[in-house]
């Protein structure tokens, strides 16, 4: 099997997550070639062919051009499987490539189960295996599901791709950096996070009180930040901060994939949730099945004694 891996690139640099694509290809036992729209100096360190198109010419976000580059690489390489990361870049570009080729796409693969691609269903409360019905297929892999270890060592064999001049419909204006954070959760030893299960904004104070009692920082899941209950600088997850404290307490957080990705490296995880089946249970060392607003004040009171 031959896999064509589409690298991630941002602000002039190859993203290290690109190597997860090679880990996935290795799991499949596939021969690999890669595509990078970026600069040559950033080519991945792999002993493989890397199709390179210049980001200075085509831009870092220009899906129409990037799609054409990938299609050209597919034409030259004739892969069976075109692999993207399930990221803001990958989930945007992959379906465009799949549709252009009219081939099946399997999204956010979390594992390989008896040779079949496994993905989540209903926030990963169930799993399903998906089979492409077309010879070629496009897949996206969940960030962190296929880990590569060690230092990448290798030398890319570069082959350039140039597209015919064209006008493109999307104009990339630039990046807006993340807002300056007044709290660096990445350095906190203890984080107590508030999720939707706390019910209302007024209850944040109760979670913050537990954080204080444990000598830690307040964190939050995305819905709580979107609702304006907690500021964005305290958001834990793929679009917030990635944290690895000694203790992480998730209060009323269901454990959506994007949140779990942000905290699963915590040393010890306690989850408080009245839903015994909440996905957070899979990463929790202790799952307390209780109403957050009953349990947390009682815990805080006991700790303060």
């Amino acid at each position, binding site marked *: 099997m031959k896999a064509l891996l589409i690298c991630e690139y941002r602000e002039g640099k190859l993203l290290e997550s690109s190597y997860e694509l090679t880990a996935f290809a290795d799991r499949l036992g596939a021969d690999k070639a890669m595509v990078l729209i970026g600069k040559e100096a950033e080519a991945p360190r792999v002993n493989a062919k890397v199709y390179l198109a210049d980001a200075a010419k085509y831009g870092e976000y220009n899906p129409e051009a990037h799609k054409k580059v990938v299609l050209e690489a597919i034409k030259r390489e004739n892969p069976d499987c075109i692999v993207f990361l399930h990221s803001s870049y990958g989930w945007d570009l992959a379906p465009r490539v799949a*549709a252009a080729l009219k081939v099946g796409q399997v999204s956010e693969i979390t594992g390989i189960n008896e040779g079949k691609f496994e993905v989540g269903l209903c*926030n990963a409360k169930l799993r399903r295996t*998906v089979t492409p019905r077309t010879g070629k297929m496009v897949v996206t892999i969940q960030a962190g599901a296929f880990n590569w270890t060690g230092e990448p060592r290798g030398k890319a064999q570069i082959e350039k791709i140039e597209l015919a001049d064209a006008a493109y*419909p*999307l104009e990339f204006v630039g990046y807006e950096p993340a807002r300056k954070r007044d709290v660096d959760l990445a350095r906190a030893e203890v984080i107590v996070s508030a999720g939707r299960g706390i019910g209302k904004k007024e209850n944040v104070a109760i979670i913050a009180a537990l954080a204080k009692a444990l000598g830690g920082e307040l964190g939050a899941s995305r819905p709580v930040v979107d609702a304006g209950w907690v500021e964005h600088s305290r958001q834990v997850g793929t*679009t917030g901060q990635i944290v690895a404290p000694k203790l992480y307490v998730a209060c009323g957080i269901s454990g959506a994939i994007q949140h779990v990705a942000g905290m699963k490296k915590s040393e*010890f995880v306690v989850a408080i949730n009245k839903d015994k089946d909440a996905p957070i249970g899979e990463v929790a060392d202790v799952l307390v*099945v209780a109403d957050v607003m*009953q349990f947390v004040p009682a815990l805080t009171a006991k700790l303060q004694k």
Partner: protein
Amino acid sequence: MKILVCIKQAPDMASRFKVNGEGTWYDETDLAFRMNEYDEYAVEQAVQLKEQLGNTPDITVLSIGPDRVVEVVKKALAMGCDRGAHIQDDASFRKDPWQIASVIAGFSRDRNFDLIFTGMQSQDRGSGQVGAIAAEVLSIPCVTTVVGFAFNDGVITARRELEGGVKAVVKLKLPALVTCQLGLNTPRYPTLPNIMKAKKKELLSFPIADFLQDKELTATSSVYPPAKKGSGVVLEGEVNDMVGKLIGILKEKTKVVK
């Protein structure tokens, strides 16, 4: 301006999910359904745009599925969409993203929509493909994962959400398709007067056979509960008991509590 908003009905994610009898999807018995959360932001953005443009745009809201999905079409009408379209299919869960997208494209093709809003993914299947595939089939520009949307003088300025809180600012002209991320806006609650007004709005129903031409490109081969439950300890019962037990565990397993 003609706007299309594509919405899906999804089950309440706090539910306990079981595999259905045939092993082909989740069991729908006793599930509560609601509008897919991502699509709420799509409906709200379409309605806000209509209001910005002096209520001149006409918004069609479309949903594919069994008769129960009419509920979410009605909610979208109550939020401010002008007309509803229900593409009837009792087995919509069996249609893969390509089929759903091509049905949307088929519906859109001769109706000349200037702007199409969708959620960036559904809460149940979560493939995140339908919006981008529909745009590709219709050959219109598409931007996904939008957390900021502005429209001035025929140009959309969209802010895409990237990892780590960074945003990418993108401009594009109509016709276009935009997929919406959580937090794009604050979806309104329909007021009672608007719910009443919605009852008078047009709601057409079409069989999916009117638009479905292609076979699936991917298929679900099996559905099952996760093999390994979390390997952690589950505490249940009386609150004060659990507090005591948890503190004991924290003292033993971490240095956080003394």
